[in-house]
């Protein structure tokens, strides 16, 4: 279907298909995408600069707020990095608790994603069902940590709250319910014709392109590449908790759906194992405020892919340099490749296929130190705000 001349269609920064602002300028010829230019930075908050101005303890909370859905991944990565700089190791019980929280977060994030993906292809009923079931995980979080997101479980030297024996049966009950529902959704995703028509063969990313463009997480694993930081570069208690790395060969959006659904089931098994085999002991060790000079690279498998932090300390209580690279940024080149040659109608589902989290991705603009607040950055907004003074 070609109409001759091309039209430039902007997607964002405000658009119903995007849950967070990001700008993609598409050049379309009729219904086919000919070119795509990404433009990010709308949620850029100056986090990397802010890290340098705060003490290591204060930075835990800053790291948590880089993202709402993968907040625990950021704090795990951060506390691991600082622990390595200090030369301490978190106690065994703390490491198991970190695994449990991280896997619960993975379930919550993937469930959110399945709902969003269903919404993008117009299947609102599945969206409503999945999000209703996701509430089970959020209730478990509230029971364990007191909050539905931003659980603040990690600290330098261990975890702040324990998972008591009384909580374990409730967690297991919640997980059993989830497992039943997830098996049903896995079945729906594989057999429902209208979903398959929109997701199969769409947004194809060949394995060679996935590796060349440094894709991450489920996007990479859905192209058949077996890379998972939990298995390749184990951290926390992942060397002791058994789990399978899920890969699929389809290279399209429906493979990504399958990878995420099956990962959720794997997470449930991993949590069950961790709960049964949790060692006794303390949950944290005390650490000094000043961190000796050094540098460290810390990696974690966030729900969206490999999360990498680079920390450099200079002997004081504040870091010299802290670098965060979250998975969504790594998937953008692969995303652009997937979109070329596809249909306009497929843009939202392909975009959703990499599970974009633009808040994680942009990270440097302004932070009001007094209020510890960050905001979206448009020049007009900034002008308006300061003109009031």
């Amino acid at each position, binding site marked *: 279907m070609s109409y001759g001349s091309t039209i430039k269609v902007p997607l964002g920064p405000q658009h119903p298909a995007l849950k967070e602002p990001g700008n993609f300028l598409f050049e379309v010829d009729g219904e086919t995408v000919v070119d795509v230019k990404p*433009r990010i930075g709308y949620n850029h908050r100056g986090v990397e600069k802010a890290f340098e101005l705060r003490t290591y303890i204060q930075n835990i909370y800053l790291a948590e707020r880089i993202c709402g859905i993968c907040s625990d991944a950021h704090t795990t990565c951060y506390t691991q990095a600082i622990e390595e700089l200090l030369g301490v190791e978190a106690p065994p019980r703390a490491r198991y608790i970190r695994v449990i929280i991280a896997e619960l977060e993975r379930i919550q994030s993937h469930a959110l994603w399945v709902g969003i993906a269903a919404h993008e292809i117009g299947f609102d009923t599945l969206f409503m069902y999945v999000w209703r079931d996701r509430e089970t995980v959020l209730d478990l979080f509230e029971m364990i940590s007191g909050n539905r997101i931003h659980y603040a479980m990690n600290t330098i030297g261990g975890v702040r709250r324990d998972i008591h024996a009384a909580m374990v049966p409730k967690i297991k009950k919640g997980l059993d319910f989830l497992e039943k529902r997830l098996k049903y959704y896995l079945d729906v995703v594989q057999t429902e014709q209208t979903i398959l028509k929109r997701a199969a063969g769409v947004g194809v990313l060949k394995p060679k392109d996935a590796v060349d463009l440094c894709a991450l997480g489920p996007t990479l694993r859905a192209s058949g590449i077996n890379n998972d930081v939990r298995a390749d*570069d184990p951290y926390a208690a992942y060397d002791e908790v058994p789990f399978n790395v899920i890969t699929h060969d389809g290279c399209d959006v429906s493979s990504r759906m399958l990878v995420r659904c099956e990962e959720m089931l794997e997470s449930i098994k991993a949590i069950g194992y961790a709960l049964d085999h949790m060692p006794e002991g303390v949950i944290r060790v005390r650490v000094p405020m000043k961190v000796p000079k050094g540098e460290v690279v810390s990696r974690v498998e966030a729900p969206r892919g490999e999360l990498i932090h680079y920390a450099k300390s200079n002997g004081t209580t504040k870091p010299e340099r802290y670098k965060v690279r979250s998975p969504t940024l790594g998937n953008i080149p692969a995303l652009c490749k997937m979109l070329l040659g596809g249909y306009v109608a497929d843009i939202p589902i392909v975009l959703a296929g990499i599970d974009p989290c633009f808040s994680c991705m942009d990270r440097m603009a302004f932070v009001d130190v007094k209020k510890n607040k960050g905001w979206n950055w448009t020049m007009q907004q900034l002008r308006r705000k300061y003109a009031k003074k």
Partner: protein
Amino acid sequence: MEKENEIVKKLKNFLKENLVRTTVPKERRIFVYIKKDALKDAVKYLVKDLEFKHLSTITGVDLGGKIEVIYHMAYKGSIVLSIRLTVSEKNPSVPTITDLIPGAVLYEREVHDLFGVNFEGHPDLSPLVLPEGWPQGVYPLRKEHKLEHLREMTSKK
């Protein structure tokens, strides 16, 4: 530690005097310091012969007068090799590696935006995270720019 030591030995043999320093602080982590001119050869060797196909990210660090650029590359997802070089602040310029690793496009743009490092041969160095209208020559992550100074500057616009 075997594999890590093996990789270090092979790199030493290949780069000879261009390899200034290496450290292996713990398993699966290698830090290597090379001279700027050897960057492209080193990256090519790493990608083609040593199978370090995955680039995790590129970090910039302001060392005061000098800017350090660190490339974090991963071997089959597990061993992370951080290969670094320094450039002077006055004229920071590094050859691009996008012809070897296409996925490096956005990382180089980010370091260019925030530190002012120029990547020669990059297909498109337009701003990635900074907004339109951001003043030229102001690179926010450099130590010279304090937070109040940056805020003052944008409020004047």
